[in-house]
């Protein structure tokens, strides 16, 4: 019974809680955050259970109201969407637990609208992933984006301006995507992805299909912060409240990357995508430029959150590069990197939130070796996540890069191989300079500074989620063979 309705339950949980939070929050504002945790916890449990039952029973198509496609709207719960839903809901669950103290400090009194918006945003992201209908996807995209703009605007003084810039460029991207959907509809007469994919081979090298593909890639690329369209990202992530950046950074760009996977691999297929022009190679090159650009800009930043934001631009490049390789190893590497990057980035952004709570800033130049005494566990979690970002074995980040490298070797694409290796070195530069400040004594300062520091660890409600995510990175690292064998089973070709 539960299995057959599961896709709808996941989305409806968020609808229910986005209504419950204002209802209870008006009565007691402090109930909002626990309710949000419960809501995302239920959704996370559903999605983990759903992915396990996918592994046993195979894919599931849920027809709303019993109307079969192409007339009705459907949710498709297959390997790809099940995997993404599981990753984003579990990460969101931990981030929302962590946000309790950040909420009290960074947006006091605004908890009720904040968590209601967070639930709506998660509804949008889950809907984008699950839906099997291109126009429905646009509506969910706008739900997620509009609540995302509002979440980003709750933050420091320049936050509304950052959110406004994101709104302009994001809505323009969404509109271009809608125009692409319009072209596809006029050519095929359907909006259902599976139905449309069955008709497309007859429309090989059709101009309208090609234009629609370009419009969709550009529109979604804005949301994914693919290299030339990344301008909104650093400011938004820096000025938003710490819990919003921890919620949006690991999830938002991944969901857009998911749509690119769905459109290129499932809807069009590699052959039609490359029929008129080598699209996959072109987005691969943009991804490669984005990887290097993001890493180099991250080195230049002195603010932890801004550095992590540029690092996100670089990491989304890995995922898109895995897509552009269009072979099973590249796909498995990209999927594993989605999981790893969601966990690593959530962990790092949560730690930057803890620094802001405890120290009042997250300025890297002010980090020193007293932090090691004051926050031993936070810094341990930071070290694990940072080393995983760099990609040292046996942590998770190593394995996703390893499979991406296997993919580039499979395609004999030595340029991309070099980009991955150089970018790993650049990652090492910007993370080791922080680790050096924290764990090495500064020779130009007095000896006693570190010894005065007393232990002042973050509250348990923050330390437990951060710690679980950091341990999760080690577990994923050791379990990579199992995960990759599952992921290779999802690959459509």
């Amino acid at each position, binding site marked *: 019974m539960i299995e057959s309705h599961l896709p709808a339950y996941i989305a409806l949980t968020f609808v229910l809680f986005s209504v419950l939070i204002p209802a209870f929050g008006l009565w007691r504002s402090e109930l909002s955050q626990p309710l949000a945790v419960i809501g995302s916890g239920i959704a996370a449990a559903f999605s983990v259970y759903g992915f396990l039952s996918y592994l046993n029973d195979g894919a599931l198509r849920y027809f709303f109201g019993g109307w079969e496609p192409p007339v009705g709207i459907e949710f498709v719960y297959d390997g790809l969407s099940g995997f993404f839903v599981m990753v984003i809901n579990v990460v969101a669950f931990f981030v929302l637990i962590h946000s309790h103290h950040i909420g009290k400090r960074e947006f006091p009194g605004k908890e009720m609208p904040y968590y209601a918006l967070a639930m709506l945003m998660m509804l949008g992201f889950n809907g984008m992933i699950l839906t099997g209908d291109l126009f429905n996807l646009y509506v969910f995209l*706008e739900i997620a984006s*509009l609540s995302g*703009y*509002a979440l980003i605007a709750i933050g420091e003084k320049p936050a*509304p301006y950052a959110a*406004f810039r994101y*709104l*302009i460029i994001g809505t323009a991207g969404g*509109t271009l995507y*809608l125009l692409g959907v319009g072209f596809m509809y006029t050519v095929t007469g359907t909006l259902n992805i599976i139905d449309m994919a069955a008709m497309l081979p007859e429309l090989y090298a059709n101009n309208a299909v090609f234009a629609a593909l370009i419009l969709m890639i550009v529109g979604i690329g804005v949301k994914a912060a693919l290299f030339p369209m990344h301008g909104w990202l650093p400011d938004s992530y820096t000025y938003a409240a710490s819990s919003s950046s921890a919620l949006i950074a690991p999830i938002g760009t991944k969901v857009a990357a998911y749509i690119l996977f769905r459109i290129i691999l499932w809807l069009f297929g590699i052959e039609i995508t490359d029929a008129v022009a080598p699209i996959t190679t072109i987005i691969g090159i943009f991804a490669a430029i984005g990887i290097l650009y993001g890493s180099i800009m991250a080195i230049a930043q002195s603010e932890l959150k801004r550095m992590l934001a540029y690092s996100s631009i670089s990491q989304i490049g890995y995922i898109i590069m895995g897509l552009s390789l269009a072979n099973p190893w590249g796909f498995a590497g990209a999927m594993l990197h989605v999981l790893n990057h969601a966990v690593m980035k959530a962990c790092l952004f949560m730690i930057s939130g803890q620094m802001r709570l405890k120290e009042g800033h997250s300025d890297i130049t002010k980090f020193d070796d007293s932090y090691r005494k004051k926050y031993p566990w936070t810094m341990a979690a930071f070290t694990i996540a940072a080393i995983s970002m760099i990609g040292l074995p046996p942590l998770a980040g190593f394995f996703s890069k390893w499979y991406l490298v296997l993919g580039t070797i499979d395609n004999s694409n030595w340029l991309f191989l070099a980009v991955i290796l150089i970018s790993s070195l650049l990652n090492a530069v910007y993370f080791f300079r922080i680790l050096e400040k924290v764990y090495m004594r500064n020779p130009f300062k007095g000896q006693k500074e570190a010894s005065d520091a007393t232990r002042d660890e973050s509250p348990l409600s923050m330390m437990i989620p951060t710690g679980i995510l950091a341990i999760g990175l080690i577990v994923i690292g050791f379990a990579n063979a199992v995960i990759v064998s599952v992921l290779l089973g999802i690959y459509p070709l």
Partner: protein
Amino acid sequence: MGDFFMGHYAYWFTIILLCIGLYGILFKKNLIKKTIGLAILQISVVLYFVSVASKTGDATVTVIDANFPVDQVANYLNPLPHTLMLTAIVVGVATLGVAFTLLIAIYNRFNTLDEKELIDKFQ
């Protein structure tokens, strides 16, 4: 050649609107004007969908009529693009609402809506 323009004049207007919208977003420095450009861009896509669905001649609304058998598709308008655009218009209105809310927040904090002045104030 004339037929290429006159035969598709609705699409040409749509393209012109799309370009005006993009121009407003990219080159206008005032944030209100950027928002207006955004609205024009969205409306151009709405008009594209509506003009795609239009039919000339005897075509009418989708009410089953014994005089027009269902299998004669040319007698009925396709209602789907119109219904889709109702949703898209609502999305557009919601976007404008969020955009103006953000503009009010920006104006209250910085006392200007000019992009150059805003960037000067950050530095």
